[in-house]
């Protein structure tokens, strides 16, 4: 299990954000969004830090983190492949896309691939039903009207992108 040390400089960024919003009521979810943006996930150490800084019981923080599907306590791949499981996508074969992605990447659930590049997530309706079935990679890359045989090419695109960077 990777741990994030107390001395991690990223805590400073988080603390700065918490100080900014501390006048407002009910900001726990907002703070957790920020924390996940900074750390990529919300391991127990980060939750403890948030609890202490916001003077909220650790149990409350843990309760919120585990309630909402957006928050994760496990690291995710650099590229999160979000396969839409909304009605329109489901009717148009979203399930098949999910199976093919898992097959191509050799993963079972939402764990990241060995190289840490990808992880697969089943998501709720992305509201792009007219393009069904859709896959969202990261926050912005929408792939519409995807068929299973397009998947190896899609994955390759991102692998290539990474290859270039290295």
């Amino acid at each position: 299990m990777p741990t994030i040390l107390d001395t991690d400089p990223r805590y400073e960024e988080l603390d700065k954000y918490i100080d900014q919003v501390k006048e407002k009521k009910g900001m726990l979810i907002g703070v957790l969004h920020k924390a996940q943006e900074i750390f990529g996930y919300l391991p127990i150490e980060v939750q403890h830090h948030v609890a202490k800084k916001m003077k909220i019981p650790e149990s409350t923080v843990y309760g919120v983190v585990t309630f909402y599907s957006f928050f994760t306590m496990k690291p995710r791949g650099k590229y999160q492949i979000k396969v839409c499981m909304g009605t329109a996508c489901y009717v148009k074969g979203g399930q098949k896309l999910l199976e093919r992605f898992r097959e191509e990447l050799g993963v079972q659930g939402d764990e990241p691939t060995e190289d840490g590049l990808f992880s697969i997530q089943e998501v709720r309706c992305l509201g792009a039903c007219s393009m069904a079935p859709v896959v969202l990679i990261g926050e912005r890359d929408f792939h519409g009207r995807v068929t299973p045989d397009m998947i190896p090419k899609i994955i390759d695109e991102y692998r290539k992108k990474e290859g270039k960077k290295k």
Partner: protein
Amino acid sequence: MSVKHTILICAGGACISSGEESVKSVLEEELKKNDLEDSVRVVQTGCMGSCNLGPIMIVYPEGVFYQKLKPQDAKKIVEEHLLKGKIVSSLLHRGPTGKVEPHAKEELPFFTEQVKIATRNLGLIDPFNINEYIANDGYFALEKVLKSSPEWVIEEIKKSGLRGRGGAGFPTGLKWEFTRKAPGDEKYVICNADEGDPGAFMDRSVLEGDPHSVIEGMEIAGYAIGSHHGYIYVRAEYPLAIERLNNAISQAKRYGLLGENILNTDFSFDIELRIGAGAFVCGEETALIQSVEGLRGQPVQKPPFPAQKGVWGKPTVINNVETLANIPVIINKGAEWFASIGTEKSKGTKVFALSGKINNAGLVEVPMGTTLRKIIFDIGGGIPNGKKFKAVQTGGPSGGCIPAEYLDTPVDYESLTKLGTIMGSGGMVVMDEDTCMVDVARYFLQFSADESCGKCTPCREGTRKMLEILDRIVEGKGKMEDLDMLEELALTIKDTALCGLGQTAPNPVLSTLKYFRDEYEAHIKEKRCPAKSCKALIAYQIDPNACVGCTACAKVCPVGAISGEVRKVHEIDQEKCIKCGSCYEVCKFDAVKKVDAVDLKLNIKNE
């Protein structure tokens, strides 16, 4: 130099995902190259609604509608249309008969049959520019309201007959009146933008395409109930909506239309965004309140209703996005005008998000009382690939499926409830003969079971038990008694669950049991899936008379289950086949057939 052309580019979600941004950047490049930057104005608008035609561009003053654009097409439009005044006919819409329709927006039934109130500005104005909203009567209603009494505003909304567009259809004016009359100095307005129903994207389009209309609606609500603070609770899945709302809020503040002493009156109102974190139940108002407070989004018992005890324990009005977007128009044009549209008990219009097996997928707004047939066939363009319409699903996981025999039903709150479904937020997912209704029911139940917050037993355990039964049926292991058990469970959950999610979760099962019982029975008695969709009950087979031996299927098969030589008939090894359907998709000769597994005398594989 004066502006000679205005180009509207749709920047709705679907157009963006089909490449609108690169079309726009090529367009801008070309305008620069040809020195047209000053004489051509480019406006990025919200969703135009015809999502299947995206990316879309309309060139004014001619009003020429260009569709399905690729980046290089922008160059053609600049060179031909803008410079030479010639319409690029290859980029125009063609009707079903092949007729070219250069002014599709004025010609296609998809556009002409609509009546736009909540979506009035979508596809027309730049959502990033408050001036464009103001130019289209924006914030006029707020000004009018501030010169009147809160009681007048409430009376006007009551007279208009506006009902909540989020699903249940509670009269908006009445909700406001209850909240105004509730004791307490501190009150809140919440905009419910947690559009969670799968297959629904109306609210998203309004937030992205016309954020100011929602802000203005909230301010009017705030004035009417005596509140100075509003929250917009928006899903984290809608980053674009969040960006545009944030921009709109700060613009409105700069213009003195939001914040302290609005329009130099003593009315002050502030709006804060709250971002959800992926929990469907948060669309339920009491759960939403918990989430706004930063807690787990678990519903609480009603009464007390939010109008008495809402966020921070204070009286709170919660309205849906579309409801709020209607408010400014009602104030401007009057309650009588609004009430003259629609049916006796459901006034005004409703926005629907059409998706699934339909030609014109997209966003439509029609008067209440429009028939399903008109929405799906006249406006929606019917079912693609010559398939037969089977059912339309409304109301998401809380709704049900309506079969073909009720296509002539005028859509309003009452008529849909009578059919065993609900209006819901406005998602309409169309299903054709290839959709298995048992599997659809299972899909929605799985959704509700996953999203059940776990607080009350009927919903937490009941939906799970129903799901187990449905899982058995789609695998061909169901018994006839299962159907009685499903019904018993469904009715118990409906009566005893704590919140709306649980109380409505059985609807998809009840409505399919009512209209498509034969499909359930076919799965159970004959081990057949009539739609040939349930994996465990079908098999793929190659028709030797149709196969030309092109080898496409063998190449695409991920498990090497297909054998055969070039130009000779291929065969599928049923033992190896994982029924992924790749061969079926790839065959150009319709030689791969779906058959009932029972007919092949295959044992239904046990997992």
